[in-house]
């Protein structure tokens, strides 16, 4: 399927480009925008964006593969990202990950069959005081316990998105 950048996207993109003396500086913000719309950055999207910004495709691809936040395949509706760095590790991140693997029946990097959850183990999220930390899409959940995790998963399954802070 041919991928085209919508006029609406282009309007927003022009505003973002205008923040920089060179348009190509907007590459990462624009990739984030594309991902926000589609849940991932498809090859076609990279092609379209490289054309839009007048950049070699290879540069766009290199950027997409360098940064960890870009999904190259569609992620689930809820992307559960468990921090596993030192503070979260000490606070029980391995147990949290194990619980999620068991509850969802998937390994890290996988998505549940219903397309609801993607599970990832990630490096330090910069919220170590709230360890262990779980990020759901763009929101942080701190001091996650087994009980809190159960409630959270139930809420998410029923389309209830809890407030984070």
């Amino acid at each position, binding site marked *: 399927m041919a991928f085209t950048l919508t006029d609406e996207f282009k309007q927003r993109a022009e505003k973002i480009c205008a923040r920089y003396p060179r348009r190509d500086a907007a590459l990462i913000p624009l990739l984030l925008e594309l991902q926000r719309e589609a849940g991932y950055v498809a*090859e076609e999207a990279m092609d379209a964006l490289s054309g839009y910004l007048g950049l*070699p*495709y*290879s*540069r766009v*691809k*290199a950027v997409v*593969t*360098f940064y960890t936040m870009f999904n190259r395949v569609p992620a689930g509706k809820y992307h559960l990202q468990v921090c596993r760095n030192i503070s979260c590790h000490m606070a029980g991140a391995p147990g949290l990950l194990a619980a999620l693997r068991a509850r969802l029946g998937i390994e890290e990097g996988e998505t549940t069959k219903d397309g609801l959850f993607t599970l990832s183990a990630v490096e330090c999220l910069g919220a170590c005081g709230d360890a262990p930390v779980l990020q759901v899409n763009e929101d942080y959940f701190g001091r996650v316990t087994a009980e809190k995790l159960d409630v959270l998963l139930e809420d998410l399954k029923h389309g209830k998105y809890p407030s984070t802070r």
Partner: protein
Amino acid sequence: MPKITIDGKTAEVAKGTTVLQAAQALGIVIPRYCYHPSLSISGNCRMCLVEVEKSPKLLTACSTEAADGMVVRTDSDKVKAARRDVLEYLLINHPLDCPICDQAGECGLQDYYMEHSRAKSRFPQEDKVRRQKRRALGPHLVLDNERCILCTRCVRFCSEVTKTSELEVMERGDHSYIDLKQGKALDNGYTLNLADICPVGAWTSRDFRFKQRVWFLKRTPTVCLGCATGCLMEAHHNDGVLYRLVPRPNAETNTWLCDHGRMTYKAVRAGDRLAKGVIKNGLIELEPALREAAGRIDENHPAAAVLGSPWLSVEDNAALARLAKDAIKTENFCFDFPGAQGVKDGILINEDPAPNARGARLVKDAYGGIALEELRARIVDGRVKTVVTEARAAAFVRDAVKASGARLIVFATNRADIPPAAYATLPYACYFEVPGTFVNFQGLRRRAEPSVAAPEGVRPLWALVNRLAAYSGASLHLDSAADALKEIVFK
């Protein structure tokens, strides 16, 4: 001008000179992988670390500018340890496939390992990071990501020299790898340079792979005849067989060599290589072919014409001029090939696909002759009935010959070059087989040197001219290529 001391030797160098360059000028070779004199500085391989007085850390010689009073050591224990360590890091994830690697013998890893390390690996083989093994990328190259040391020379080449930017390092850390768009071929006209500049066996030439171990190769400096640019190059050969062509970097003309130029050697042993004469479409021994050609010329000397060729050496063109003037004794000869000249792609490839239009002009200067237009006119109006020329140059009079039905006698190396209208074709030795002088678009005199022998019975063009003249009862006294140059004045 800053004065710098390296390993006790002092040199005064131009401002902006790097420590690596200054060392080179002093005859001190600092090992390097990512540095390439014709590409931007990347500083990633860390092989060129040197000790600079007053700097607590080792510095990369490739990126550090020489400063006045700077004292550098490239042979201290600290430097040696750093080189050993960097080599060990580079080798931990490098496959152990030297026995089947085409780079063996000219591999930066092998060479520096022998020179700077010789340590036993402490890394378990089963822990090696695996990457994609060989795959063809484009018409000329194979990429083996597992052998790659990520020096990014290839990435920089494609972004800085060809400005095509196909390549990038994807992903990051020790899982990163060189790649281009999925499904795209790497075909920018200069791709084989990657096989040269790749310091390891990651990029190899599809053409050269597995043909010959490099330590068996003999090297002959020569010139590329792929176009009027006249790049200096080296022919690599063994046992009378050519294997590859690589650039001889020089300040005047070329650092690189284009893919087209690199493949010019293929004609030497191509299936259609001519070892015999051709009359109409039938193969015939050389002597009868010469006799037949001479007979046709002798039918009507005033109606014979000789057209030189920008594909031929100055010597062979001069021999053709002598044929016209001293044997056939006709005024119908032409060594006038104007044609646009100049590098058309901003890199190397010339507007003029022929290598020696300027060399042919020297023959014109010495012997005169008529303009190409005039020759065409004389063919069309029937004053010229037989044209002697070189196969590719025949294209200059193709329409005229077609219109008038004039007879075409051509010299050719390969059957593919023979124009359909040719009546007789005489095989000659190419410039990988015999020497020749060429003048490139800049007016620089360049010498083609032979590296292999011509096929049995195939002779230099000037020698064939000598024979043709003899059949016509004239003696040109050409005993060598140099004899043909007697009246030529090089500027």
